[in-house]
């Protein structure tokens, strides 16, 4: 569930400029800001009248900008998210390897120390 903000033309925004209405919806879960701000959200019980006079009753969501461009923005966003996660994962793997090496060295040290004690 996400909180978005709609202006007087029912266009979506991710931040409120002080004049907007907050709406909670799961329609944009996982969507990037560009995608969300390219949409129109008409809440239940309200009516949006398009420039040509056609009325749309809520609850309705529909792209207010060319959906292909919004979809491209979303795909880029998802690629960036994936790349960030991959980098994070690689860093964690590297960190893990260092820890393993350190642990192995510690085990060796303890073993050697024990041997010395036993030989004494």
């Amino acid at each position: 569930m996400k909180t978005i903000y709609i202006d007087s033309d029912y266009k979506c925004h991710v931040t409120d400029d002080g004049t907007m209405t907050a709406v909670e919806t799961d329609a944009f879960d996982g969507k990037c800001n560009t995608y969300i701000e390219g949409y129109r959200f008409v809440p239940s019980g309200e009516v949006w009248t398009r420039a040509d006079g056609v009325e749309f009753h809520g609850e309705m969501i529909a792209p207010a900008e060319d959906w292909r461009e919004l979809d491209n923005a979303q795909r880029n966003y998802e690629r960036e998210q994936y790349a960030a996660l991959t980098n994070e994962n690689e860093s964690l793997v590297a960190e893990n390897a260092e820890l393993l090496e350190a642990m192995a060295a510690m085990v060796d040290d303890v073993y050697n120390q024990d041997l010395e004690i036993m030989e004494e």
Partner: protein
Amino acid sequence: MGQAFLHGNGGSNPLNFKVVASADYPDSTSRNMIPDAYAKTATSNGITYTVNGDGSITANGTATGLSVLNVWGNSNSLTLPAGTYTLSGCPSGGAVDTYRLCNNATSINDTGSGVTFTLTEDTAISFKIRIQSGTTVSNLKFWPQLEKGSSKTSFVKYAQKGNTIWVKTSETVVSWKMAKQSSIPTLTSVKGRLFISYSSIDSVTTTNTNFDALKITASQPNSIMVGLNAAYLNLDGTSSGWKQVYAYIYKSSGWVQFSSEFSATIKVTYPSGSTLTCSNGSTTLTATTTTGSYTFTVPNSGTWTVKAVSGSNTASQSVSITTSGQSASVTLTYEVYLYNAGDQCTSLTGGWSNKEKGASYAGSGSVTLDTSAMIIACNTTGSRCAYTTKAIALSGKTTLHVTISSMSNLSSTVPAGIWVATDTTVTSYSWANVVAYKYDITNTGTFTVDVSSLTTSCYIAIGIDSAGGAGSITVSKVWLT
């Protein structure tokens, strides 16, 4: 007294016009082109000029300065077509330093014998009697006459023929009428002047032009045919080029500027290649292009219907025009049915398929496609939807319409919805990859989804789900515009 009232479409201000038949100007049945009614009895610098009514003008007195009487026109307010003319009528014995009949520039002078001159192009001109300072005249009678050609002939009085002069305009004149009016209307000029004088007018100035008794005798597209009844038409400047004037039309309350006549526009976006019309029942306007965008200028208020036709496709919409200056916009698109009272429109949709709206409710409802309607039902805590087997191309379409003609047990916990999705995957509770939807339908009616920004192909799904209680909807029509 007849008055000419031009009724135009009000599309331009100033009004563009030009004289087409200027070669026949001026218009007289006699040889004499100078309208004797133009000159008025007057006194100028000690000389009294008396207009006698027979075409002659008598001068008396001693000029205390340069004395001038306008015989025809003032300050080159006339336009004579190119040609050869002869000016005559000055009493014999005249001279440039005593008295003469001449043009405004004093380059054409008749001092008693007449003078022939040639204009190589349409020329702004006027004619006057000119008596130099200190000259004394007694009952000196002038008989002004201008005639075509190089021969001076005996004086004849000007006779207005009542012929026609064509004034061509780039504006569409949609009607004209005659009416009565007691006062003389005024026509204020700005760029160039439509200069019309009449014998009953005592004075005419170049900044405040009066006209009266014009008679419109015919009309044709893009032209105004002005017939001169008891008036004559003078055009200032060259007659060959386009001129501009502020024109006025007569309304019941008086004369109003041409541009303030009713005018409103309806901009129509429509499928290119279609024939487009705009009609209020009595007047039908037809678009002159088929490019897909056209603006009509309508001359009246009321309800206008714009209609696009291409083969068997028809789309129309009514537009209410209430005020002059109003601009309305309309988009016309042809209806494309995806389902129509039992017709699954298979060639486009591939037929309508049946599946759960959300995977968690698999098998808990039904879709019935009978001969007249599509019935979608869900059981308690179930869901069901019907969807197009093929993805539908939405490019060029603006609105998805769905008519639900009957319902059973719809409520906020058992609502219906319309989904537009890029594939037919369902998640646990709903369709995935939804790009537009209309939800929370709890009544019958026609419901719409804005698809104007979708240019890809999508599946259309109509469904119902329940958080408690069974329900059903009957869908009779699904279409795109």
